[in-house]
């Protein structure tokens, strides 16, 4: 299997503090890679460096073999790298459907066609499909700000999938989501992973969720990679138990 994402020796310093201290890994086509580690170990900073939201102090990011370090988040997104956020980042005044149309509109046509073309950018069907897929039908015309926390989490995830991304970085998708909705979310993620051949990297603290969803798990501690491997291997790793999982 070829690597969709190759990260080589990424470093990020904030003043004198090293948040990420030389992390290297690849993400293989079609896999779901889990990323776990204690709070403050640099997981989200690593995401932001990969996504161009922070510029790394050193190192290189390759997407499908092409160097993409230094590209802006919007450019990366249009190359097929999408993300969800740890904290809710939907557009509260827009309806669920409008949020999804917005999430897809920059992925087709160009600036000119977006000005003179159809006002929904021809995305209503795609948005409706996504609404059906995430079982948000009864909420489609509600303003997103009126949804429950868990529903907004689902919408946030659905928005990440609107442009048909190759690679999706999910930052704590399960945080604050109730168990029944979580089972739903997992099922949706697995379905998209299989059917659309999308590759995922998932930051998550819910071990059951990570261990059952991911094909490989990377453990970070203090800005470095502590372990990488199949979930059952990682779970037994003494260093991981010491740093994160606990006895």
């Amino acid at each position: 299997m070829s690597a969709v994402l190759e990260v080589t020796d990424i470093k990020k310093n904030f003043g004198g503090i090293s948040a990420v201290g030389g992390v290297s890994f690849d993400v293989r086509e079609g896999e779901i890679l889990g990323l776990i580690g204690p709070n403050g170990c640099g997981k989200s900073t690593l995401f932001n460096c990969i996504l161009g939201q922070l510029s790394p102090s050193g190192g290189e990011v390759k997407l499908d073999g092409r160097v993409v370090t230094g590209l802006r988040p919007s450019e990366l997104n249009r190359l097929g790298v999408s993300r969800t956020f740890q904290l809710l980042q939907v557009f509260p005044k827009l309806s669920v459907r409008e949020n999804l149309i917005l999430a897809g509109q920059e992925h087709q046509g160009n600036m000119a066609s977006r000005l003179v073309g159809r006002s929904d950018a021809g995305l209503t069907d795609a948005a409706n499909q996504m609404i059906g897929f995430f079982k948000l039908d009864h909420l489609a015309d509600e303003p997103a700000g009126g949804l429950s926390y868990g529903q907004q989490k689902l919408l946030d995830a659905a928005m990440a999938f609107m442009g048909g991304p190759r690679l999706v970085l999910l930052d704590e998708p399960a945080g604050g989501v109730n168990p029944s909705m979580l089972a739903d979310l997992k099922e949706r993620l697995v379905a998209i992973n299989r059917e659309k051949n999308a590759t995922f990297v998932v930051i998550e603290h819910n071990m059951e969720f990570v261990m059952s969803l991911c094909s490989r798990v990377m453990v970070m501690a203090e800005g470095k990679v502590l372990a990488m491997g199949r979930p059952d291997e990682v779970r037994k790793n003494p260093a991981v138990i010491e740093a994160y999982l606990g006895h």
Partner: protein
Amino acid sequence: MSGFAKPLKIALGLAVIAALIIVPMNFNRYGLFILSQWAVMSIAAMGLNLTLGYAGQVSLAQGAFVGIGAYAAAIMTTHGWPLPAAIVVAIVLSFAVGWVLGYPALRVQHHYLAFVTLAFSTLAFLVFRNESWLTGGIYGISNIPRPHIFGLATNKPLPFYYVCLASLAIVSLAMWWLIRSPWGRAFMALRENPLRAQSLGIDTRRYTLMAFAIGSALGGVAGALYAPLTQYIDPVPFNLSLSLDLLMMVIVGGAGFYFGPFLGAMIAVLLPEWLRFTEGYYLMLYAVAVMLLLIWSPTGILGLLDRYLAERRTKAASALRAVAKSRLETAQ
């Protein structure tokens, strides 16, 4: 404003348009001047509403763009060019300058951006006043001709009012289209959450510059109509106070609401006239009214209306839920 039924809205819109065409036929010269000024200021305020209200970029330079448009039109038409050509030049010039002024907005936001644009406003004023070889300096430019449209002279107040009204109509339609296009959504995303917007592929840099450029271009259009309206311009009307007036029109009307600028411009232009009977007190009354409005509703008049309609909808929805619940309870 989705509380009104659609046919009612269309009927209301047509009635307002008809009134704007028919009623002023009996107006005197001064009444027509005030109404034309309303149309011109609405265009400028609509531009600022795009930059500030929809895209969330604070600008204290809209008055300077009105000045740029006015000087472009005054200089060109007094040298024998037709007004439509001057309007095109005004649009291109203010678009380009507005685009460049957008660059600071890529680095600074909110009140810092307000200061940058304020400095630009002062700079533009100094150019209008000091570059007298071009602008006539403090003596200004007089005898600005009014255009012939399709061979018809618009020297008289009523025909020129129709020129202003028709321009307002064209700009309004273009703005309606823009706001409903994906661009409108992208501008709003820029205002609400630029971080999320970027991660959805929205090129926030380009949209920020566009918001500035298009908003400024509308300021230029307003200026190009202002010059033949007053037929004499000097630097004074385009100083910082015009930018502040336009900002107030947008905020009082309701920033980010389509009809906000029309309403805001109406209040700013017409209210002082209506309060004229109070003689020396009208500015004070006006100031107090604005303060009270903003304390009561920081989102302006249309924000107030929006809140009222939203409350009514919520009440209607909860009443429906209560009925459904009581039915369920009786059924059990």
